[in-house]
């Protein structure tokens, strides 16, 4: 494997392991410590991962904004799963957090139209809600045009 690819794979796994374990993404220094690397190559790796849309960094920084399906910042899509509260970047990601963490959890959000609270619980891979729709306004080919908005 290309050495960069090998480093990037290790960095990606460490980002997710830390995030799931600690409830927040690691900063580059924390990744560097765990992987016994210098900080500069960790930041280079994070930038490569961001360029490939594997992670999203806060603009102009090496700090993680999104490790999909997880958001580092609060969003209207909260998830209770695996004993902790998380934030998803959208309803797809919020359900993805539940799926990623074992298939049991609760997503809470608000209807973007009427602002009523909405809740979807999933137990062992089965959602509780029979009704309701999710609407996508932006076609799939353009999702990464503005991932923060979409």
């Amino acid at each position, binding site marked *: 494997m290309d050495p960069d690819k090998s480093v990037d794979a290790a960095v990606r796994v460490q980002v997710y392991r830390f995030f799931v374990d600690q409830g927040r993404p690691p900063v580059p220094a924390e990744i560097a410590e765990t992987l016994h690397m210098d900080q500069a190559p960790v930041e280079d790796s994070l930038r490569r991962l961001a360029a490939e849309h*594997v992670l999203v960094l806060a603009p102009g920084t090496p700090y993680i904004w999104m490790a999909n399906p997880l958001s580092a910042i609060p969003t209207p899509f909260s998830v209770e799963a695996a004993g902790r509260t998380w934030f998803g970047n959208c309803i*797809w990601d919020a*359900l993805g957090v539940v799926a990623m963490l074992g*298939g049991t959890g609760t997503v809470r959000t608000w209807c973007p139209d009427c602002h009523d609270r909405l809740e979807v619980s999933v137990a062992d891979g089965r959602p509780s*809600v029979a009704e309701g729709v*999710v*609407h996508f306004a932006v*076609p799939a080919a353009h999702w990464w045009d503005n991932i923060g908005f979409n």
Partner: protein
Amino acid sequence: MGASLTIQQQWELARVWYADRLSPDWRRRTPEEAEAVFTSMGLTGEFWQLTD
């Protein structure tokens, strides 16, 4: 305009998309692979198209 999914469909899509995200063997899907996921779930047409 746009596309709509039922909650059940959105859960299934989320499950297929993210269940293995913590695996060291995970890699990002190619546009072809992503489109194949959409197609397998009946999500077809121009809205879900990622390839030419």
